[in-house]
């Protein structure tokens, strides 16, 4: 129909799905670190792995934004209503905002924590702190980090639900724009 412009670039698609899997892992690690009944050593390792992979989501996000900026995004489908366009735009903007804010807030939480345990990239590098030690501020950041993570989980649910609606209810094949293999009427 629209040829290559109707799909996201290979780089954007690859980074999107890598990001999805990565975030699911980081979310699961964070949830386990804060709620699982484990001994101190296992809990420490879970926190440190969550912190390392979580910090790396910032790198992943930068790569995604670069890949996205490198090519023109596919245009909205002609069948979309104004409301659909705006809600799509809003949800995507909110997703990107949370993808940037949550790890940054986590980084602030770790940096300002009374217990000084910096982010370590698996012993290869230590990420510097970006805030002075402040217990109340750190606890506030921890709350915001958790709130942001659940907001992101809710938005991702909405994002997936919308993709499924487009695929199975609207049958507009929008889903294939982000699928590794092309298909459907727009391919």
């Amino acid at each position, binding site marked *: 129909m629209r040829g290559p412009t109707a799909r996201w670039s290979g780089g954007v698609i690859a980074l999107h799905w890598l990001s999805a899997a990565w975030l699911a892992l980081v979310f699961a690690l964070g949830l386990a670190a804060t709620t699982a009944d484990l*001994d*101190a*050593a*296992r*809990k*420490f*390792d879970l926190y440190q792995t969550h912190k390392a992979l979580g910090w790396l989501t910032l790198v992943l996000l930068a790569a995604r934004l670069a890949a996205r900026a490198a090519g023109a995004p596919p245009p909205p489908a002609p069948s979309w209503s104004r409301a659909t366009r705006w809600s799509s735009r809003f949800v995507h903007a909110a997703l990107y905002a949370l993808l940037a804010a949550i790890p940054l807030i986590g980084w602030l939480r770790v940096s300002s924590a*009374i*217990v*000084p345990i910096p982010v370590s990239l698996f012993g290869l590098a230590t990420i510097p702190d970006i805030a002075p030690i402040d217990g109340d501020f750190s606890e506030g950041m921890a709350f915001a980090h958790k709130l942001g993570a659940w907001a992101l989980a809710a938005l991702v649910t909405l994002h997936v639900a919308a993709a499924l609606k487009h695929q199975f209810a609207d049958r507009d094949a929008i889903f294939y724009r982000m699928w590794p293999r092309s298909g459907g009427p727009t391919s």
Partner: protein
Amino acid sequence: MTACPISTSPRAAAWLVAAVVSAAAFADRSSGAALEHGAWRIDPARTHIGFVVDAVGFPRTKGEFRVFNGRLSIDLDRPAASRVTFTVSSDSIDVGSSSFDDTLRGPNFLDAQRFPDIHFESTQVEKRDESTIDLTGDLTLLGVTRPLTVEVEVKRLGGARLAFVAHARIDRLSYGMNSGFPIISRDVDLTVSSEALAG
């Protein structure tokens, strides 16, 4: 200081126990250093230097130090002249996670690079009752030396074997280890257990 003869009298045994407990607690596991003069010998496989630290919102951290050595002199005629020294290698901390160990070795906690050793030197030995001894000495941690009293429980296991358990509570803040307080408790509970064999 005199030699440390094997004695069968209960009084002498009690003092011997005091000394052995201290030595057992901090014996060199790798060499199995025993009491001087061969009177008693530490069982390195049954020697354990453990510690416990509490924190808010985090499980109780339990760990141990794996490298240590001790020296012991006993004067049965003048128990107060008995002497115990021991040294624990800060670097040998083990809490069951290499990443956690590295953090505890780091500058915020044990600062093992600047202060490789934790050192104890006895200044007084007092018998509390037939099975308990108070061992007082100076503990040097992070370059700060402060008095510390270790409570030692002694148990005869039968034959020529003795079991010892020593307890001490260390206020880490008084040694300048302030990181993480008050989320991480100021008290560190130290428990040293060991067994010694006669002959």
